[in-house]
């Protein structure tokens, strides 16, 4: 009795399905890459598929965390990909102009410039949405399109390559045996959670997204909150932009962060935040972003032909979204809570049994 109620409570937790999908996706890799979960030490750095997933997923997590807050207010930000490009372009072009590209002061200034540009983009988005009352999807479309042009303008249409040790650290360096990006991501996530849950910001954001008119009548300065949230989202995208350009030591105005806005929106949705606004979950978004990155990795490891991998990705996304839908779950797994039905119910605990068996493996190796 107690185990079944505990199980039910567990399945009701808002992170249950995203985490279940993540674990399942990770397990799919094992038959193809038996040492998938192994992590080894080389040159004082930790290597392994899990580390790579977090490393390559870092920019997406950053962008998605910012996106979560925007979506929670009932908005959306399509411009993040362009902001990634602008930030990277600005930082790299500034560094490439320096005589000593590895000078710390120059690098810090470059990063500051890039992030400032990102925040200005966010301010513009927030201004259009909150002050001018333009629909978020249209307002942010402007920078989504124009931003790429601005990035090209900054780089003169070239791919700027740089050679800067300190700058390389952000997206490609290591610290305490782990990729430095992981620390950046962890810091941003912790700060975001603290900012939203330790203050009343989270509550006010959810109120604005949950019922805008009620929020106005209750005296919430929703315009101010929306502008802040768009600026924060752009700042996150800016950090991701630094990370991406740092990882390749190059700024590519055309391709940096291309389509990352769509992956970010998807990560937010997989994480359980409704596109209608209201309740949001930063933890869910992080898991959602990891699901997407794991999926990308999985596509490579199991050898899906390159030309069909978008189709494969779409198929998995459909399954994830269906699992997220309570209506669908009731239809498929509903029988387990009723009197009849033994075939489907058996399948679910079996999966979880497999998961618990697999879990120790991660620690062993």
């Amino acid at each position, binding site marked *: 009795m107690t185990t079944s109620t505990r199980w039910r409570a567990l399945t009701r937790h808002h992170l249950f399905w995203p985490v279940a999908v993540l674990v399942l996706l990770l397990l799919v890799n094992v038959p193809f890459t038996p040492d998938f979960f192994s992590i080894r030490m080389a040159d004082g750095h930790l290597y392994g598929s899990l580390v790579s997933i977090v490393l390559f997923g870092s920019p997406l997590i950053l962008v998605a965390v910012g996106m979560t807050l925007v979506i929670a207010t009932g908005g959306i930000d399509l411009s993040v990909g362009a902001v990634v490009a602008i930030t990277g372009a600005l930082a790299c072009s500034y560094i490439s102009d320096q005589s000593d590209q590895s000078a710390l002061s120059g690098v810090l200034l470059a990063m500051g410039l890039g992030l400032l540009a990102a925040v200005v983009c966010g301010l513009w988005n927030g201004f259009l949405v909150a002050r001018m009352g333009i629909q978020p999807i249209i307002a942010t479309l402007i920078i989504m399109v124009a931003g790429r042009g601005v990035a090209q303008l900054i780089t003169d249409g070239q791919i700027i390559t740089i050679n800067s040790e300190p700058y390389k650290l952000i997206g490609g360096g290591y610290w305490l045996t782990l990729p430095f990006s992981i620390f950046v991501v962890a810091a941003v996530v912790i700060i975001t959670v603290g900012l939203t849950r330790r203050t009343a910001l989270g*509550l006010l954001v*959810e109120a604005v997204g*949950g019922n805008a008119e009620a929020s106005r009548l209750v005296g919430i300065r929703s315009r101010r909150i929306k502008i802040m949230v768009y600026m924060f989202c752009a700042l996150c995208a800016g950090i991701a932009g630094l990370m991406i350009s740092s990882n390749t030591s190059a700024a590519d105005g055309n391709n940096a962060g291309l389509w990352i806005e769509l992956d970010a929106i998807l990560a937010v949705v997989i994480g359980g935040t409704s596109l209608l606004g209201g309740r949001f979950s930063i933890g869910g978004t992080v898991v959602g972003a990891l699901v997407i990155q794991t999926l990308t990795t999985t596509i490579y490891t199991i050898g899906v032909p390159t030309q069909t991998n978008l189709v494969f990705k779409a198929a998995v996304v459909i399954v994830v979204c269906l699992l997220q839908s309570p209506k669908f779950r009731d239809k498929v797994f509903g029988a387990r809570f009723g009197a009849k039905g033994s075939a489907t119910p058996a399948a679910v605990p079996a999966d979880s049994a497999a998961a618990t068996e697999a879990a120790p493996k991660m620690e062993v190796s």
Partner: protein
Amino acid sequence: MAEPRPVLEMAGIVKEFPGVRALSDVDFRLFPGEIHALMGENGAGKSTLIKVLTGVHPLDGGTITLDGRSVRITSPLEAQQAGISTVYQEVNLCPNLSVAENIFIGREPTRMGRIQWKQLRRQAAELVERLGLDIDVTAPLSSYPLAVQQLVAIVRALGTGDGEGPGTKVLILDEPTSSLDRDEVLQLFALMRRLKDEGVAILFVSHFLDQIYEVCDRMTVLRNGTLVGEHMVRDLDQVGLIQLMLGKAMGQLDELHDQQLHSHAGETLVQAEGLGRTGGIAPFDLEIKKGEVIGLAGLLGSGRTELARLLFGADQPDSGKVSIEGRQVSMSAPNDAIGAGVAFCSENRKSEGLVPDLTVRENIILALQASRGWTRPIPVAQRDELVAKYIKALDIRPANPEARVGQLSGGNQQKVLLARWLITQPKLLILDEPTRGIDIGAKAEIQKLVVSLSEDGMSVLYIAAELEEVLRLSHTIGVLRDRRLVAQIANGPEITTSRILETIASGENQ
């Protein structure tokens, strides 16, 4: 009198939700050609019974017999096909489409996949005409007032079936009158009586007792999910009915009588001069004293809500000024009013009050938190204490601060909104229809609360459609007509509802 065979019979209906038995062993019958009222407090099981009947909720026990045949209804669509149509409190139509399109949406007459627009319009016009309504079916629905939209919703419900005239045997009207004014209600009743004469059985839910006595033939009373009794309306008077619904002798409301029947003297709190807004309300002067309850009387659309919204800065005035405690307040946004100690509970609980996804606790602290700004969260201990205090004081049920507010009943949602503003300790509390759509018990509680708040020195601007309520609570009664504040009457023993009605009507047919 020999009774004909009922068109609908529900026997031994049981419905359980996790932890709650919403309906236990309820019997219900409906005869053709009658208007039958389903009575009960909020939470008595009225909505659940309707939802079970229309297939929204599956049945946990009992049988439904329609026209002598046992039926099993598992979805709203099946209910419609079986001849049971429902019109809900909120109009669920598309305002941007024409009346004709709304009536036939989803079942347009087609030939080879193409919609026969001419036929559709003709059929709609015939249907509307046959029901004695004067509506241009080609005009967009949004060009008509809410009341007409409600009538269109009924026409649409009737049209379901074979598409040719009413296939509807049972018509369920769930609080159709809550946002209609008197004339519109009469229009609705005329339509209901016409349908009754055609043999349609109508199930009518309303919180307005007078309306029940005006239009209904028979009533079934529920309390706490059980059947209390079925009575002919003419055999049971209002006092008897209220006693059945509450399960106890009525007396709470009477206590309030005669308590406040003299005008109030005190310092001026709010002084509005020439405050007005084009298209909203003509410029008016209004003085509200400390601890005074000002009731606003007037028909729906007479400018009651518009007046209140100006005093709160929810709409921007284009003339006049407001001063609160002698200081002029700009009133360009709700923030200005809130800062000056004004609180406003909107009549639209759902769209302008609650954030349904958030918990009871979060909804309660929202106004206080908004005034503190996001950087200064209310300390957890203080927050929990405040919330617990108001949940207890207002008897909000369930008394669980973690419950999602969207799942509460109407009365409890209203209490959450009251708690939200009381927590900010306002100087002036504006209540726009605080008792609409909630049960009698909660109504009495809210009215008592207004009295005690006023005794503690809080000023209240009280808006209600029921004149008795306004008369009972107010020191001063502001009368509105055609978006104009036409009179301010000091309450007293000689003031009666008919006196107020005369003022409202002033020569009109009332």
